[in-house]
């Protein structure tokens, strides 16, 4: 892929839906289960990833003409690790209770395949503005996935949202247990596949009517 021909808006939408990190590409799955037992944790994780992804894309795009292709992998790793340390320390300072729960997973953003992949396939070959748009789109896509998963898990598992009780009665405790995370992601993935297949079938039907 040389320079992209997509507009910035198309790039953002691409990251949000058609190449959604969790549901479509199925990479960077660890946090999708680990931190989604409450909406708050999912929210903070999503925001951190938007920040890191955008800044990494921006930085890599800025220095793309100075990187020797042979040592690009360590350079990308250092850029990513730098921003992750930044967010790790700020979170430890300003959001202590959340950090206690998800700190380890924030540090592990370094090993996210999705962030590295966008630097490798996109930012290193494109100008700054499209790279920012791409990073933003990918980050928001991840953020949305986090919100959707944690919304269902907290609502079903604790009968609460963002810590506030919403539903009375016995919640399905299993949804906040580790196993529930796997179930939630599996079911949501299946649902999105079903939705995709349905929409494709509709589009085909519409095209068939037009040609007829």
């Amino acid at each position, binding site marked *: 892929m040389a320079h992209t021909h997509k507009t910035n808006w198309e790039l953002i939408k691409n990251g949000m839906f058609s190449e959604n990190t969790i549901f479509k590409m199925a990479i960077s799955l*660890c946090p999708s*289960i*680990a931190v989604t037992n409450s909406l708050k944790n999912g929210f903070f994780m999503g925001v951190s990833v938007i920040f890191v992804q955008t800044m990494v894309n921006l930085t890599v795009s800025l220095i793309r003409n100075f990187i020797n292709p042979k040592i690009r992998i*360590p350079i990308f790793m250092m850029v990513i690790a730098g921003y992750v340390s930044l967010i790790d320390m700020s979170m430890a300072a300003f959001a202590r209770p959340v950090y206690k729960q998800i700190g380890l997973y924030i540090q592990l953003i370094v090993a996210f395949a999705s962030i590295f992949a966008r630097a490798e396939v996109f930012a290193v070959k494109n100008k700054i503005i499209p790279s920012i748009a791409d990073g933003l789109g990918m980050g928001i896509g991840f953020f949305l996935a986090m919100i959707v998963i944690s919304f269902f898990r907290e609502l079903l598992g604790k009968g609460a949202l963002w810590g506030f009780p919403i539903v009375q009665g016995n919640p399905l405790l*299993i949804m906040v247990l580790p*196993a529930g995370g796997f179930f939630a992601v*599996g079911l949501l*993935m299946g649902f999105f596949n079903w939705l995709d297949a349905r929409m494709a079938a509709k589009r085909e039907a519409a095209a068939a009517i037009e040609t007829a």
Partner: protein
Amino acid sequence: MDFNKLFQLIVAASLINNFVFTRFLGLCIFFGVTKKMETSVGMSITFTAVMVISAALNWVIYKFIMVPMDITFLKIIVFIGVIAALVQSADTIMKKLSPALYYKLGIYLALITTNCIILAVPLINSGENYNFFESMAFGVGSGLGFALALIIMASIREKLELADIPAPFRGLPISFIVAGLIALAFTGFSGLITL
């Protein structure tokens, strides 16, 4: 040296706090290589070996370089750098010494850098202040736990190929649900021993 504690650490890291089923790390690789038994066995062997070496190396660097120089806040950057260098050199050495083994396991080596467990273990080791042998034991336990998870999952997924699954759930979604069921079984290990 307290062998009792070491044994407990190994059991705890592999069964009770199994990285895949209770901490959800290494999922990308977990779902990526478990389609076939052969690839999961290859990955398990390579991963456990690299894990132990990396745990030991990172412990030495943390204890004797980073703590005396008071630069522990750089640990994320240093650990990932050490792991990348280790994997790269293991790749080169293996290619030179044993081409046959490299041909079999080389591809898994490249994948290991993207496995979060390999970074999580040194981070936890330094956070919990484990000594050298405890760090090694934790590394061994994590490697074994990951291997166990891969092999269980691969044997189930090979059977799943023949099952009649609703179309939208084929592939990854059903694997997630299977993993959920295994995780449920693994919660039975909690309380086996207490550290």
